[in-house]
């Protein structure tokens, strides 16, 4: 970049975020979390497993990145978000979508929706939550590709809501499970591709020699 070139800070920020998410690790971790969450619906005894996964997966993600990703891309510590603003935004979106769906259900059924109806439409609600998350990621990374996840999540959510499950709870469980498996598989595919297309790099040692790439996987 030359001195007389206009610097687009937003583009640089988006490229850094985009590059830091190309490794598939976030998708794999999301997949595992969703799978653990779906098991909670099967048996409440799995709640402990979910809580453990919430605690340890973050550490696991850091270890995977330190072992496999940083030697290939280098290390970057992204800017910390303002927690109040982020959490506030998530809750606001959650309540807005929840309220909108509730009103639509009341209007469609002409009465307060039953718990079965609420369960039945939960997959669509979760799909819309994915949409919110992906719009946020779209803004962060500048990549419209992430919106494909939102389209997939909403389409599958609608299908599961409209399909006549014997117990609407089964629809929610299977939906979360399917989303978990999808994230895990896509994440694993991206991770494998990332490892093969990004060779290990090293800084120069004190003698000024570029270090050898020790491993390729």
């Amino acid at each position, binding site marked *: *970049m030359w001195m007389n070139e*206009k*610097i687009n*800070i937003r583009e*640089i*920020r988006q*490229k*850094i975020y985009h*590059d830091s998410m190309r490794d598939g690790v976030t998708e794999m971790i999301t997949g595992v979390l969703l799978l653990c969450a779906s098991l909670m619906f099967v048996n409440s005894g799995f709640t402990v497993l979910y809580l453990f996964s919430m605690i340890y997966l973050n550490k696991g993600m850091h270890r995977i990145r330190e072992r496999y990703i*940083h*030697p290939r*891309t*280098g*290390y*970057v*510590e*992204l*800017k*910390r978000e303002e927690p109040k603003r982020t959490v506030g935004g998530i809750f606001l979106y959650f309540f807005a979508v929840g309220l909108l769906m509730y009103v639509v259900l009341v209007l469609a059924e002409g009465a307060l929706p039953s718990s079965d109806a609420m369960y039945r439409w939960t997959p669509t609600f979760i799909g819309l939550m994915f949409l919110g998350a992906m719009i946020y990621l779209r803004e962060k990374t500048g990549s419209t590709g992430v919106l494909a996840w939102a389209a997939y999540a909403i389409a599958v959510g609608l299908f599961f809501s409209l399909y006549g499950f014997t117990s609407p709870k089964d629809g929610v469980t299977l939906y979360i499970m399917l989303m978990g498996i999808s994230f895990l598989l896509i994440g694993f595919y991206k991770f494998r591709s990332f490892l093969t297309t990004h060779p290990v*790099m*090293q*800084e*120069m*040692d*004190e003698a000024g020699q*570029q*270090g050898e790439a020790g491993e390729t996987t």
Partner: protein
Amino acid sequence: MMAHLYVVESADFLFLMKQTGLTFGNLSSHMTRLEAAGFIEVEKEFRGKKPNTRLSLTEAGRSAFEDYKENMKQIFEEL
């Protein structure tokens, strides 16, 4: 390099090489000058057995970059 450090908390040498497309020597030369000017902070450490150089913008560097951005904006507006 300053623009990349402006949007993150910190980054290491390899990351900046990849993002900026600069060579090792070129980036190293920039780093030395910016450190001498007090615009960036450089921490050298060993991660395992591998050398690792982590860079971050200092307050003076952040302020200087913001001034530079403002000046450039004015110049482009006047063009």
